[in-house]
């Protein structure tokens, strides 16, 4: 099959769907690759690089549409592009079918199959083609870099000869892929990072990235696994509580990065005007949801706004495109994985298997039919996570009461045991001869010492301990030694055998322990 990558015509779009590297991989699958001239220029790949990789460079979009059987690109197709599609052709790109119904109908009418990269279901197998995640990852990283660009201070706290610098405090709202990437970037720059998300099950991920999870004490929290790992709209009560929490943070934080999106809806307003007013001058807000209306009241898409009190609000919508090389490499790899799933035999023949969960989910038109929305995937996205219950910290009084109670219980138990033991001893003393009792005292004391001593032995030395105690238990040899001088032949023979095997035990046990311990060495 001939796979052709179009040049992006959207204003400011620098990404490209095919890189020389991914072209090499596609050729291994038996495909032939084409590219429109200059398509990779903005992302740092010139036509020459493509030619070296064996890609045919085509002049202009019309020629490419004519030559290619599969057209790949980044942004959703423009009207012109859709017009050029023909029957049987496949288009792979971002598509946003829910928002672009007219375009969907147009592509259907043209008879082309469309695979929407934004519709790849969220299951483990499909992670390698999850372009939304790879773009979100870049957006999260870039959001922090942009914030740093406009922020007048260090991220990390420093104590220098010229004075002390406090660390920047960063608040990340929404811990999806972009949010987590932002957390990771900000923490590695040395900032103090806090994060919030409506899905309590992501608290572990937030903490694993090194941020503090802002816990909201609310009963009606939602289970993200029900909606395929995405957030859904929350109740008004919950929203109130959430805003209250943000308001408390507003005066403290220096940088706010908002990434809250709900699939198929405008972005929720989470950072209100009054919160911006509370922030210190020079603080930065980066709104990654700008394209969908923004999480912040002041956000203007594609613009940098400065509020009355000097807070900078960044509403760029082209973060991935601002890192075009990196974004193209990742996106092209996602596309390449999609195509390798579409080419199961690796023979250059595309099999559009509508039974396959991933392909079915991503296909929005096929054979002149609209196949959107897809049926729910057969495999559930994420195993349902049990909501994490935050254990209530006991107050100092409660703690002390618990400790006292435990201490009392322990005392009662110990005294009880001692009393029972004492009574038993007394009874034993009534029947046993005096000589026995003497030995018995020794026995009980030895048991006590044994208990006390062994608790301290380190775990790693348990095997040597076994070997030593084993050797020492060879003390049974004394019994045999005491009897071996007997006048009875049977006793002498039994004692002799006992001496023999007990000696094997003693010598073997000690030597093997020495061997083991000699091996332990410090680095």
């Amino acid at each position, binding site marked *: 099959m001939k796979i052709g990558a179009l040049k992006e015509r959207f204003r400011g779009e620098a990404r490209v769907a095919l890189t020389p590297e991914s072209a090499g991989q596609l050729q291994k699958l038996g495909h032939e690759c084409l590219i429109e001239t200059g398509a990779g220029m903005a992302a740092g790949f010139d036509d020459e690089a493509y030619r070296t990789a064996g890609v045919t460079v085509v002049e202009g979009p019309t020629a490419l549409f004519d030559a290619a059987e599969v057209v790949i690109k980044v942004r959703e197709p423009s009207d012109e592009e859709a017009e050029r599609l023909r029957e049987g052709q496949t288009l792979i790109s971002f598509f946003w079918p829910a928002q672009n119904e007219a375009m969907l109908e147009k592509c259907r009418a043209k008879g082309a199959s469309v695979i929407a990269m934004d519709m790849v279901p969220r299951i483990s197998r499909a992670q390698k083609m999850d372009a939304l995640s790879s773009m979100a990852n870049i957006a999260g990283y870039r959001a922090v870099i942009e914030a740093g660009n406009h922020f007048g201070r260090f991220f990390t706290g420093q104590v220098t000869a010229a004075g002390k610098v406090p660390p920047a405090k960063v608040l990340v709202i929404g811990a999806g892929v972009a949010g987590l990437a932002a957390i990771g970037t900000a923490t590695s720059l040395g900032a103090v990072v806090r994060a919030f998300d409506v899905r309590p099950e992501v608290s572990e991920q937030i903490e694993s990235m090194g941020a503090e999870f802002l816990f909201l004490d609310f009963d009606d929290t939602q289970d993200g696994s029900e909606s395929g790992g995405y957030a859904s709209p929350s109740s008004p009560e919950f929203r109130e509580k959430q805003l209250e929490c943000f308001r408390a943070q507003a005066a403290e934080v220096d940088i706010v990065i908002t990434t809250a999106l709900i699939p198929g809806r405008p972005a929720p307003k989470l950072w209100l005007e009054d919160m911006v007013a509370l922030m210190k001058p020079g603080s930065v807000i980066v709104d990654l949801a700008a394209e969908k209306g923004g999480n912040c009241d002041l956000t203007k898409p594609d613009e940098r706004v400065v509020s009355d009190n000097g807070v900078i609000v960044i509403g760029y919508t082209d973060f991935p495109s601002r890192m075009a090389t990196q974004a193209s490499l990742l996106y092209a790899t996602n596309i390449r994985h999609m195509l390798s799933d579409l080419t199961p035999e690796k023979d250059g023949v595309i099999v559009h298997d509508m039974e396959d969960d991933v392909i079915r989910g991503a296909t929005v038109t096929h054979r002149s039919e609209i196949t959107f929305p897809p049926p729910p995937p057969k495999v559930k996205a994420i195993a349902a996570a049990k909501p994490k219950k935050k254990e209530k910290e006991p107050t100092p009084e409660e703690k002390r009461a618990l400790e006292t109670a435990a201490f009392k219980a322990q005392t009662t138990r110990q005294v009880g045991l001692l009393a029972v033991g004492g009574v038993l001893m007394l009874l034993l003393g009534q029947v046993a001869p005096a000589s026995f009792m003497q030995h018995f005292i020794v026995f009980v004391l030895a048991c006590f010492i044994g208990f006390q001593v062994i608790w301290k032995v380190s775990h790693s030395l348990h095997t040597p301990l076994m070997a030593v105690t084993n*050797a*020492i238990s060879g003390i049974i040899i004394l019994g045999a030694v005491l009897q071996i001088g007997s006048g009875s032949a049977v006793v002498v023979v039994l004692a002799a055998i006992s001496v023999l095997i007990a000696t094997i035990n003693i010598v073997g046990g000690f030597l093997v322990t020495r061997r083991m311990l000699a091996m332990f060495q410090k680095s």
Partner: protein
Amino acid sequence: MLSQGFVSAAAIAASVLFILSLGGLSNQEKAKRAVWYGIVGMAVAVGFTALGPGIGGYGWLIPMVLIGAGIGTYLARKVEMTEMPQLVAALHSFVGLAAVFVAWSADLERRRVLAARAADGVMQEFSAFAALVATKAPDELTFLQIEVVLGIFIGAVTFTGSVIAFGKLAGKVDGKPRQLPGGHLLNAGAAVLSLVLAVMYLNGAGFWTLILLALLAFFIGYHLIMGIGGADMPVVVSMLNSYSGWAAAAIGFTLSNDLLIVTGALVGSSGAILSYIMCKAMNRNFVNVILGGFGGSQGPAAEIEGEQVAIDAGGVASALNDADSVIIVPGYGMAVAQAQSAVSDLVRKLRAAGKEVRFGIHPVAGRLPGHMNVLLAEAKVPYDIVLEMDEINDDFASTDVVIVIGSNDIVNPAAQEDPNSPIAGMPVLKVWEAKQVFISKRGQGTGYSGIENPLFYKENSRMFYGDARESLNTLLPLID
């Protein structure tokens, strides 16, 4: 001949040395000295007792000691470190058997003395232990009988139990739990019968009762240990260790020898504590382990979703090359595949590349308490990077790569997440919290407990199939 005073002084010295020896095992450096305390203590104990008053029989004693020492030295030199569990079990059986013999002898001597008393009332000259028995009052002789019974019973159980444990550990006996029809009723029956025999013996029945008693106890030891599976062996071995100590203490009472009593009690209580520690590590109680099998679960185990994803050496190598921190979790599979030196080479290479490499050891990994530590020490892995579960469990979340080599149940998240799992509540190593987990494993089978391991299906888990040693050897050249 040394006087009794000398012997007693020696006994005190030896007891103190033994206590110091056990206590000294609290860390690796002191341990090397502690073993010498033990050796000197034993030499003092045996030497002075043998030279004490009224011993004799040196014509037998000296050659037997020499031969035994020869065999012991040979065994200790020859044994592979992976075979340590077997060796320890085998040595326990010797103590058990010796205890049975000594107890039998004690009764034979008692009979001789009684026979002589009954014959003419004239006290003839007895040698060795019989001389001591001859001085005993009737009530003391009754107690001596009780002690003999205890010595025989514990000794005999220890003997066959250890032989079976040895067989299982050495792979000569099937490792699966197996019982005769009747199960624990047979054990209980044998125990009741033993009690009856003991009562008959105390009431003056002949020596045959003691032989039968030993046979019954042999059976109990055999049947009890046959019913316990391979993974519970750490508990079994330390329990048998404890028994061998109690047997020695019982014999000490019989022979009125304080040194035997003290030493036996030390060994007995230390073994008991070790068993307790092992049981705690598996969140099971001692009786449950000894009677075999897992407790019944309260409901169906949680369904596992997802798939096991395999990875090849190249993938593991590139992840390791990118990682800054690595934790290796070894299990019995590493011992079986003899992979410890390959692991050691891997660690050396990773550390040379400036990565932080540590080991996480579960208390019941392997077949003997501390088994993994000894194997790693043999492969020259420094002990200060080998950490136990409690020390390392919180660090998994900040670790880049975890490599699980031949362990299964001890890294099973079901123990914490699924209340219906048969191993629910068992403390496990939380490897799944790491960024990435590689599991080196032969195939897709389940662990000893036969439980599916959800770890293998987690998104950050990759299966590295194949024999552990071969897998690691293909991996080594790819690390830079």
